[in-house]
């Protein structure tokens, strides 16, 4: 912000409360599991309905932390998502975790490595873009397994 003390109004800001509420999904891949039919869900459907059996009985479930890339994009389109410009180009991947859950994530620490369908990856904890309050935000990313 400039040296002038007048505040710059922002019409829309995500609340830090939302980031707090969802943090264990970001930090620990916490999804949910249907107590009735056993279906696994990520993102968590806690308090929501299981689409498989239409019952309302979810429990917390932590997804597998390793998996395999099924679809890959090296994002070179020239307009990275806001707050992710320092890392461009990013490896954006659809990952099938070892428990069968599919997750969209970024494979980081792989500037020189080949990433593509079949690459084994494991979850790591990294810093993401800032919350709109200016606070740091953390969450999952992936790195090549064994790296």
């Amino acid at each position: 912000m400039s040296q002038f003390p007048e505040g710059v109004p922002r019409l829309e800001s995500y609340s830090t409360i939302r980031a707090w509420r969802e943090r264990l999904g970001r930090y620990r891949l916490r999804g949910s599991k249907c107590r009735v039919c056993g279906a696994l869900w990520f993102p968590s459907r806690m308090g929501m309905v299981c689409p498989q059996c239409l019952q309302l009985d979810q429990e917390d479930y932590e997804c597998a932390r390793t998996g395999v890339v099924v679809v890959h994009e090296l994002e070179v389109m020239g307009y990275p998502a806001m707050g992710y410009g320092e890392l461009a180009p990013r490896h954006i991947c659809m990952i099938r975790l070892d428990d069968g859950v599919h997750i969209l994530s970024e494979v980081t620490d792989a500037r020189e490595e080949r990433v593509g369908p079949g690459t084994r990856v494991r979850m790591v904890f990294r810093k993401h873009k800032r919350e709109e309050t200016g606070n740091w935000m953390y969450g999952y990313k992936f790195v090549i397994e064994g790296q």
Partner: protein
Amino acid sequence: MHNSTPGRRTVLLGSAVSPPERSVLGVGYREYLTRVTTEALLVSGLGLADVEIGAISYNERNVPEGALAPVVCDALGLVPRPFISISQACAGGGVCADIISAYIESGRYRIGIVLGLNKPDNFDFRDAMGPIGNWTDVDYMLGFTHENYGYLRSEAYKQQYGYDDRVAARWARQCHWYARRNPLALYSQGPLPTEEELLSSTPAGYRARTATGRNLASCLVLASEDVAEELGREPLFFTVGYAHRPCYIGNHYYYTGHPLYREADMSRQPALALAARDAFERARITVDDIDLAQVHDLSSYDGMMALEAMGVVAPGQGGRFVLEGQTAIDGACPTNTDGGAIAFGHSSAGGDFASKVHENFLQLTGRAGERQVPSARTAVAQAYGTHHSLDVVSVLRRQDT
């Protein structure tokens, strides 16, 4: 003109889309919508006083006004009439049209308008659009937008069926061919891009094979079939079907909530198949009746996946269909005769649905000029919202002979 008879079918009386402009910064959205509404009513032979109900499709994060219906209703001088606002991304126009159709078919109203608005200069465009229709906690907030979804979907399709970018280049070139014959298209002029340009593996090449954004306002005028009769117009029967798919892209894999989705991955569009099935059934057509199609090609591969999901071609055959030239004007199914999202322009909630219906209207009324598909009687228009979290299919057809 109140109280039509229940069971009457919905017809499209007229439509209008705004001229191609990359930016309309000097015009507010109220004026922008007013222009197309008056034009569409003129085409329909009606006036504002005849409008009984309206609906508008917009992207909630493109306007600061949280509830758009009262604002637009007021701008058009339609107060106190009923008005509905729908924020359901690029395919929201289809949902609006379905609601208005249902009102008309129920007999409650006879004439309604469906507006679409894409004029994203109130907020930073890409950021505002990023979270639309996503499960934002774990995608948008972690730096992924539906544009990433789109790229991955294309990759999944190529991977699944062994296609490379030659099919995309061919698709894009065909779209440009049509666009050069459509004065409303963003790329209505200039030389056709070469296959080489369209095949380039550079970001510029990628962009050439994917949609180009444009501002757009649209208006469809829907009415009960007896209104067309009173006006002495040939009725064009209009039907919409739509279906949803999970918001989170990971749940596009083997989603167990519906049998059709169980074996699907990103390269198959089961919601689109359901929407098409519904629309075709209610319009009493089969896929063989389709004379031409407008599909939502945010990337060329999206267009092929759409043709497959609607049943125009078998799964995996979309690419071959394109290479054989079957989407050309003399092909088995002329496709995206307006130029599609790639060359007509991608206008999200403003017209990704309505502009396709507008093109079908021009085609079925013989007003499509150099790109006219001869003796077209049945045309379909398809649009999806963000990443097929919403799929819409509409059918426009002339009277059975």
